[in-house]
């Protein structure tokens, strides 16, 4: 035990003396929370739009000022021809153009009907759809106001409630994702690389000839990262509760217990990678393509899993972070208890045991 503790101490010195790495490891989650929390939104607002007004009459300028007043749009340009419009799209200056036909107002007055054309830059399909919807809504609002909102017979109204996240904040879906990402990064990648680094620089040989059991050496390497990840979890949770206003609706204890389970899974993965590679670059390559990308892509945090083709959906079940992401979402946001997530927990525990067994089996006490 004393031997083990002194090895742990050595690892702490190792990490503590590399200030830059330590700084990044502790700063990474904070940076991610800030970026995801404040900079990235799928909300569309202040989109630059142009007006091609062939009518230049009362109605068209009314609608134009309505659009400009809405927080979704900024009218930045006045167009005079389709050609000009296309050029503006190609320069990336506008996202949407609203085209009024000639005699817009007189059509409205005489026939009670008139057409407005919306042209969207669909190179970003979601933004195009959203902008078209918003612009249509603004125009319909205008129509309602002009007709004095007269009530039509046989009306079906809809009332809507947003569950869990009434303000539609992006933070609710990314905080669990950032937790999974950071833990994967700190535990798996860093453990794998530190072990391999000892191999690459030759110091592993020195340790392997010491009387300490090799498994102890490797476990000692994992301990500081366990602690680091606990600190990271704490800072993520504190930031999300106090800065982003994302509440922890479920039990904190359960959340922490599940996080420790996931940390163990990640550490086991890191050990497995380190025992099957010899160079830092390879370890990094495997961690990045084999772990980090799947964590981002297949855990359901950035991209919806249900939209993926079947092979990817099946593959996503093998990604530990997918299960952890589901667990955190259930406990933290939905406020559910263990009864709702026992299945996910069991799967994660099973994965951990399997990975650990594999890592131990593959660990070589002899150098090539």
């Amino acid at each position, binding site marked *: 035990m004393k031997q083990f503790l002194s090895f742990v101490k050595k690892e702490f010195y190792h990490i503590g003396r590399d200030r830059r790495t330590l700084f990044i490891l502790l700063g990474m989650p904070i940076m991610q929370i800030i970026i995801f929390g404040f900079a990235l939104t*799928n909300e*569309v607002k202040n989109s630059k739009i142009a007006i091609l007004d062939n009518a230049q009459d009362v109605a068209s300028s009314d609608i134009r000022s309505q659009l400009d007043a809405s927080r979704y749009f900024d009218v930045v340009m006045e167009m005079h021809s389709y050609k000009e419009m*296309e050029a503006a799209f190609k320069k990336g200056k506008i996202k949407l153009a609203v085209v009024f036909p000639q005699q817009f107002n007189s059509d409205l007055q005489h026939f009670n009907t008139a057409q407005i054309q919306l042209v969207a830059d669909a190179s970003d399909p979601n933004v195009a759809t959203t902008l078209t919807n918003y612009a249509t809504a603004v125009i319909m609002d205008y129509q309602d106001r002009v007709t004095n909102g007269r009530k039509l017979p046989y009306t*079906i*109204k809809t009332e809507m409630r947003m569950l869990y996240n009434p303000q539609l904040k992006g933070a609710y879906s990314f905080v669990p994702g950032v937790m999974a990402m950071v833990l994967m990064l700190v535990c798996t990648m860093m453990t794998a690389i530190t072990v391999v680094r000892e191999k690459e620089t030759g110091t592993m040989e020195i340790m392997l000839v010491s009387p300490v059991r090799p498994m102890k050496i490797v476990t000692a390497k994992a301990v500081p990262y366990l602690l680091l990840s606990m600190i990271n979890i704490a800072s993520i949770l504190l930031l999300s509760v106090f800065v982003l206003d994302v509440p922890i609706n479920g039990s904190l204890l359960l959340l922490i217990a599940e996080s420790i389970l996931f940390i163990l899974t990640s550490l086991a993965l890191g050990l497995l990678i380190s025992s099957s590679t010899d160079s*830092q670059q390879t370890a990094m390559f495997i961690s990045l393509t084999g772990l980090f*990308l799947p964590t981002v892509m297949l855990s359901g945090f950035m991209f919806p899993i249900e939209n993926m083709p079947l092979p990817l959906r099946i593959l996503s079940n093998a990604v530990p972070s997918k299960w952890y992401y589901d667990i955190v979402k259930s406990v933290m946001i939905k406020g559910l208890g263990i009864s709702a997530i026992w299945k996910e927990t069991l799967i994660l525990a099973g994965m951990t045991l399997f990975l650990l067994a594999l890592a131990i089996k593959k660990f070589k006490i002899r150098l090539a």
Partner: protein
Amino acid sequence: MRTLKFLLQKEFRQIFRDPAIIRILFVMPLVQLMILPRAADYEVKNIKLSVVDHDHSTYSRQLVSKITASGYFILNNYTGSYKEAMLEVEKDHADLILEIPASFEKNVVKEDEGTLFMAVNAINGTKANLGAAYLRSIIQDFNREVRMKWVQFPRFDPEMNLQVTSSNWFNPSLNYRYFMVPGILVVLVTMVGAFLTSLNIVKEKEIGTIEQINVTPIHKYHFILGKLIPFWVLGMVVLSLGLILARFAYNVIPEGSLLTIYVFAAVYLLAVLGLGLLLSTYTANQQQAMLLSFFIMMVFILLGGLYTSIESMPAWAQVVVKFNPVAYFVEVMRMVILKGSSLGDIKQQLLIVFGFAVLLNGWAILSYKKRA
């Protein structure tokens, strides 16, 4: 000149003798380009719907079959209790609950107004928003049908009626992959450029071979050019591979000219390589270099407009984005590939990235010292 030739020979040999680098260069881009665009599909479809029907009327049945026929929704279950539907939402089996209250049909017909209740799982805000909007437009359609049946509208419509037509330029089928593939190409080129250069130089530091170079009469700029040129070439190769793959796997054919893409990429790669050089001069070992470049790349890529649009970012973030070369390349790639923008259209971005290239490389050369 001869010194440079020898240095280049050395670098290329070193790269091609390292199987790990070959894998990073050719396998990683291939895998990413094959998987990422298929996974990164933000299109909102297949929304799972739970219907709570207290009415069991003709209308409620008609409405539900209209909703399922729209193609956006999958009927998860059809029950009589809200509680049961809520359980489905908790288990993530349903995204949206539509509650049809008792005597809904009667209210619409007799009282002229019936109300439907929707509850949306809003943890994912975008999906919730779009899903609710789709459902509401279907309900409005249904409403119109109902009204048509009851009211004989005169031929001349007394109500004012604005018709809005919309068209989607540059990507009329709203194919999400056309949007993602050009962006992912940028990520690939950037990763190769920044990661590999910084790791390569730091590795020489870590294993001590840089000292051997430092004691030779090689000039500073020889050394740096010797490191830059091979990775610049590799970056262009990865870009070409990516473009070919994009064409055959996703049918993404650039609308604009390939020359525009290559001219911009050539300048952009210089900037990214400069960044890699700079990182390597400020780090001591591969672990640090990797973490630092990973950290910076993460910030650049997240703030590069790849997944979320830059315009909706807050003002301070938009200022930060102005210093992000990745954002310019993502924008340019999408402009050239999807919209067919020409060199004249992207002049401004090209000049800015050129500025980055000069700045970063200059800084890197100044801070690189031929001392241990």
